[in-house]
């Protein structure tokens, strides 16, 4: 049963407000400790290192699942801020509002280097945002942007507001 008033994403005027609202209301984003910084429409998601993120204590390395989850949330956050923007790279996206949070359909995660016990960063690029489907690519890195530790590409199901 869907209640439109309850399902609607919180009204927020700016991309920054939408981003903070989204990160603040997703319990799992708080569980991981994810935050984000915005420069215009360019967002950098940040996963501050915390001991509970470790998946291999002998290296030590951040859990591969956590890196996948972080990049998936980065993609969702980028979609949240992309709505309503007049960005040229967002096909059909201008002026459209999402009625609810996009849902991942599939993601492919490529692991490039082990995630060391330091802060991790990620940026997402929406390669296409249609009326129903968005294609998103994400890269995560630590000390060196040019040496990513993992990459994700995925499809997300959109529900646009009427």
């Amino acid at each position, binding site marked *: 049963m869907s209640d439109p008033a309850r399902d609607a994403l919180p009204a927020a005027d700016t991309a920054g407000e939408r981003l903070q609202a989204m990160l603040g209301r997703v319990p799992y984003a708080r569980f991981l400790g994810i935050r984000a910084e915005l420069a215009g429409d360019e967002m950098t998601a940040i996963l501050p290192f915390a001991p509970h993120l470790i*998946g291999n204590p002998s290296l030590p390395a951040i859990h591969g699942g956590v890196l996948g989850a972080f990049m998936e949330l980065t993609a969702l956050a980028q979609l949240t801020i992309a709505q309503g923007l007049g960005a040229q790279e967002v096909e059909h996206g201008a002026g459209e509002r999402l009625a609810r949070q996009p849902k991942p359909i599939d993601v492919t995660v490529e*692991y490039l280097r082990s995630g060391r016990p330091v802060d991790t960063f990620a940026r997402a690029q929406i390669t296409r945002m249609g009326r129903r489907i968005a294609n998103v690519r994400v890269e995560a890195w630590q000390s060196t942007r040019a040496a990513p530790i993992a990459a994700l590409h995925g499809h997300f199901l959109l529900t646009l507001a009427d």
Partner: protein
Amino acid sequence: MVMTPKNLKVFSSAMNAGTPQAVALGIETLGFEDGGVAILTVPYREELVGDPDTGVIAGGVVTTLLDHACGQAVYAAHGQPIVIATLDLRIDYMRPAEPGKAIFCRAHCYKITRSVAFVRASAYDDTVDDPVATAQAAFMLNSSGGKPAHADAVAAAEGAA
């Protein structure tokens, strides 16, 4: 040490206990089947919700469970406590998990070579043939560069053997 179903269970439980993210999520290994199959579970918790409108657990939790279960299926297929690294992980999200329910995962390492293992997995909240998500993963074997693997978990398994 060659792992039998009995010490495989002890080994994997000790590994889970020594893996902070597995502890944080509450991931538990339920058991193994012949032919490289591992069965794991993660309980539902409010703080793991990904969509507060619906109460559905975050896709990322399912991602971590699938990755973790696929890794343990590799140990089951290989029979030695090797160090492995995920090369890639493809996940299809079939339907939202039912809020309030634990998620289970059955992972099958169906092919293993000298250096690479291939795994398929299904995550479900009711029956294995009605998946919440499915995964396909590839792992690199012996990725530690000769560093001894999982010393604590091996010691626990040897003690139980």
